């Protein structure tokens, strides 16, 4: 017997400990487990051994084979583990992800959509009306006589296009969305519940709070018995849904030729909660829209039978609401369309 099994085992352990890569591991395998390896040599010597040595060598060779196999397996696992670790650290997971660029809806359209959708949920339908209008629809039918001081609030751009239905007069750019009411009423019989969003125009010098072009939403509800109390209920619900449950609303008497009674709608300033701040001009209230009970003269103008219907109407400025809601201090921002503005909403 020419093998010192104890020493072989020690050497094996030392060798195994020093193995650094797959190649060295393969060399180790060949050395011990290869066809001409140490263990093969041991087995090959068995027939020549004495009956006494045979089982001893066989047993030790088996044990050695097991040990080598086990060591190699362990080493392999270590390498795999190491490789995994290496792979992991190669990727910088902190780099930004790559997504598709998404376009943004203009904030005014978002605001119009939000408001119209609130009214749609209450049963209103959304209608369109043209920007180019007649004096009849924009003024006369709404009980705003020509040359009356009540027109001062509705200064108007006139177009160079004669009104085909009214000799000597010209078409104009609607100065409010209320002519939309007239069109709807001429087209349909009550019951009616519509909101009409759109652009309106007034020759105002442009500054932080004035624009010659802006957006309004008109609302109209006509039926056989619409009451002033309904106006209060409807608008209070609307204000709470748009601005939050804690908002207080009040109707302040005002004058519009096309409604009677007329009111302006104030909400408690949600910046200061009604205490008074720079946003509400120390008043504690913010004016957000005009409203009223439809003046019977308007029904007369659209040819509804006298006394048959009552209705309520309201109109709000979209820019004003968006400015209040999002803290925008200059109306021109909406029309400059700076990408850094557009992409915030």
């Amino acid at each position, binding site marked *: 017997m020419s093998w010192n099994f104890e020493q072989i085992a020690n050497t094996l352990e030392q060798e195994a400990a020093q193995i650094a890569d797959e190649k060295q591991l393969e060399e180790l395998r060949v050395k011990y487990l290869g066809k001409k390896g140490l263990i093969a040599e041991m087995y090959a010597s068995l027939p020549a051994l004495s009956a006494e040595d045979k089982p001893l060598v066989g047993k030790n060779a088996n044990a050695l084979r097991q040990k080598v196999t086990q060591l190699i397996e362990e080493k392999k696992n270590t390498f795999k583990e190491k490789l995994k670790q290496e792979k992991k650290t190669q990727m910088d997971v902190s780099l930004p992800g790559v997504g598709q660029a998404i376009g943004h809806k203009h904030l005014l359209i978002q605001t119009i959509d939000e408001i119209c959708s609130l009214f749609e949920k209450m*049963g209103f339908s959304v209608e369109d009306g043209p920007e180019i209008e007649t004096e009849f629809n924009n003024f006369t039918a709404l009980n705003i006589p020509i040359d009356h001081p009540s027109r001062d609030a509705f200064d108007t751009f006139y177009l160079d296009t004669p009104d085909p239905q009214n000799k000597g007069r010209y078409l104009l750019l609607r100065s409010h969305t209320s002519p939309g009411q007239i069109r709807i009423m001429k087209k349909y019989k009550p019951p009616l519940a519509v909101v009409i969003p759109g652009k309106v125009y007034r020759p105002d010098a442009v500054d932080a709070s004035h624009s010659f072009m802006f957006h309004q939403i008109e609302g109209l509800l006509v039926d056989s018995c619409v009451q002033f109390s309904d106006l209060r*209920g409807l608008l209070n619900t609307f204000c709470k849904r748009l601005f939050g449950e804690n908002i207080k609303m009040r109707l302040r008497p005002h004058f519009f030729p096309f409604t009677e*009674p007329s009111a302006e709608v104030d909400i408690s300033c949600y910046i200061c909660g009604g205490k008074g701040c720079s946003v509400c001009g120390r008043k504690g209230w913010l004016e957000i829209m005009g409203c009223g009970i439809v003046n019977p003269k308007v029904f007369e103008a659209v040819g509804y039978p006298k006394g048959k219907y009552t209705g309520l109407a309201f109109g709000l400025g979209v820019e004003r609401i968006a400015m209040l809601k999002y803290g925008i201090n200059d109306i021109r921002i909406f029309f400059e*369309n700076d990408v850094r503005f557009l992409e915030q909403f």
Partner: protein
Amino acid sequence: MKISLNWLKDYISFGISPQELAHRLTMAGLEVEKISLSDQDTVFELEITPNRPDCLNILGIARETGAILNKKWDHPKVKKLSFPREKCDIQILDKKGCSCYIGTVIKNVTITQAQEKIRKYLEAIGTRSINNVVDITNFCLMEMGQPLHAFDYDKLVGGKIIVRRALKGEKIVTIDDVERTLDEDILVIADEKRPVAIAGIMGGKGTEVTDKTKNILLESAYFDPILIRRSCRKLGLMSDSSYRFERGVDLKTVEEGADRAISLILESAKGTIVFRNKLSLSKQKINPSISLSLETINCYLGSELTAVQCKQILERLDFKVVLSSKSILRITPPHFRRDILREVDVIEEIARVYGYDKIKETIPQIKMSAAAVDSKREWRNVLSETLRAQGLNQVITYTMVNRKSLQKSGQEDLEGIKIQNPLTQDQELMRPSLLPSLLNITVSNLNHGQKDLKFFELGKIYTPAGEQETLGIIMTGSSNVDWRVPKRGIDFYDLKGAVEKSLEKLGVGEFTVAAIEKSFLEGGQSVCFQKDGRILGVLGKVHEEVLSRWDIKQDIFFAQLDLETIYLHAKKPARYNPPVEYPIITRDVSLAVKEEITFVQVEELARQLGQGLLSFVKFKEQYLGEKIPAGHRGLIFSLVYQSPQRTLRDEEVNSIHEVICKAFIEKLGAIKR
């Protein structure tokens, strides 16, 4: 309108703070916009709505305050005056323009300072004190709402007052030292020779009351509101007087106002009345009485008021009310309330004084409306979504442009609609194209360092045919947000893809694309989309000359689509189309074709010869280079074969494919590669 609370207290006492009073007035429709303190006085700035000329004076406010607070108030005590029979010479030549004129001549007046109280009141509301006579006219204007004017009687040539239209080109220097040129549309007060005042608006410098004045003529009149309003607009001149005349003064106050002023003048400046002439051409219209049932009131308001409550509110506003047993109110509005003509006018009075906030809230029963669903709105939403999903931001631009910006955009041939009364040149024209508006905001973004822009606007253009819904798209800069691949500049195909996707989403169906020539687009890089012979829109690279005029230094791609036409073709997907389960066979083709041969021609030819088994043609690549013969370009694409009924055999695909490839060579002169 400003009012002094000290002054107001001369007629009514109220035990509440100025803030509380302001709140109560505001909530009754007389909005107090500002409260300011001046010299131990509080001044309110009120917004009086145009239907309430009766509130444009302190007595009006006292009446409202009394009604709101349920308190009594006092009229000023005017001494009974006695007038001589002698008349001064007054002629009214424009009877429609002036329906009442009272002239009173007072001789030997002493012009001094007005008494302190009057001066303080006037100063509190921002009216400069002049002298006792002028201050008294201003005091009475503010107190009663009747505009008055005092002339230096000795300076009226011939001692005459003639109310007439001005002659064209006639001139007057008004008391603000401005010379104004008049015409026939303007009513004047004249003496024998010349205009001495612009009626109802402002007096003339030549006849104003000064320290040296001995004798005065006091004018109190009623001028036609429309005439005054037009004159003011024409002259660009407004005054406290014209403000009241154009809203309509009360005919009854013409005389009351005169008498109030005369008695104060006699008190302060002494003198004697020598002439009095009252010309009244129309009688005070009597307001119609209105019958109104309590039921109507409560039904209109949704309130639970009693007939007595309504009666009391109206009486506090000086209405006469007779209450019948059946709760019918018979109402006669006071003479100064010309705005109360119908039932609803009375109901509003009751509601505002009672308090809008005291009326309960109810939820309206909203019935389904007869108005149809607006389908355009749905398509608009589809478009907006499709474009935003492709990374385009929605913009809203001004719809007015100036002609210069159209020229800059190479679109001077487009008409637009002219605006008669623009405030600035930028509002000359309703735009006939979206290009100038979109270039405008592109430039402002570029100037802010935003170089990669993708915009769309769902707006309108305006042509002599009217307003048309239009989609505009601008793309510029580089497209890539992916840092793993190199940046690539936006080009024609990016924009074409966005437009194609939009039309596809709208279900427009097949359309054709043809090259066009447009002055604002680069030749060879501009196309129009057509369907059934109608143009759906144009698209292309904005012309270099246009860009240089706008001072833009990068390529801009622009599309404009006529949505009115596109909506006519828009369709929702009608039926489910099951995907074909049989396998596809793909054959790649690489050709060199002459430059003038388009890919659509190649595609069409393949389709014609595909025997219904060519499912689609997938374009892969276009290339140029040394290996391609001159005047040619390389095209690589796949022909994808599939049958909806069965599995295709290789041999049958091969034979079709061979025919097609042969045709490419024979019919299109292509070179196979």
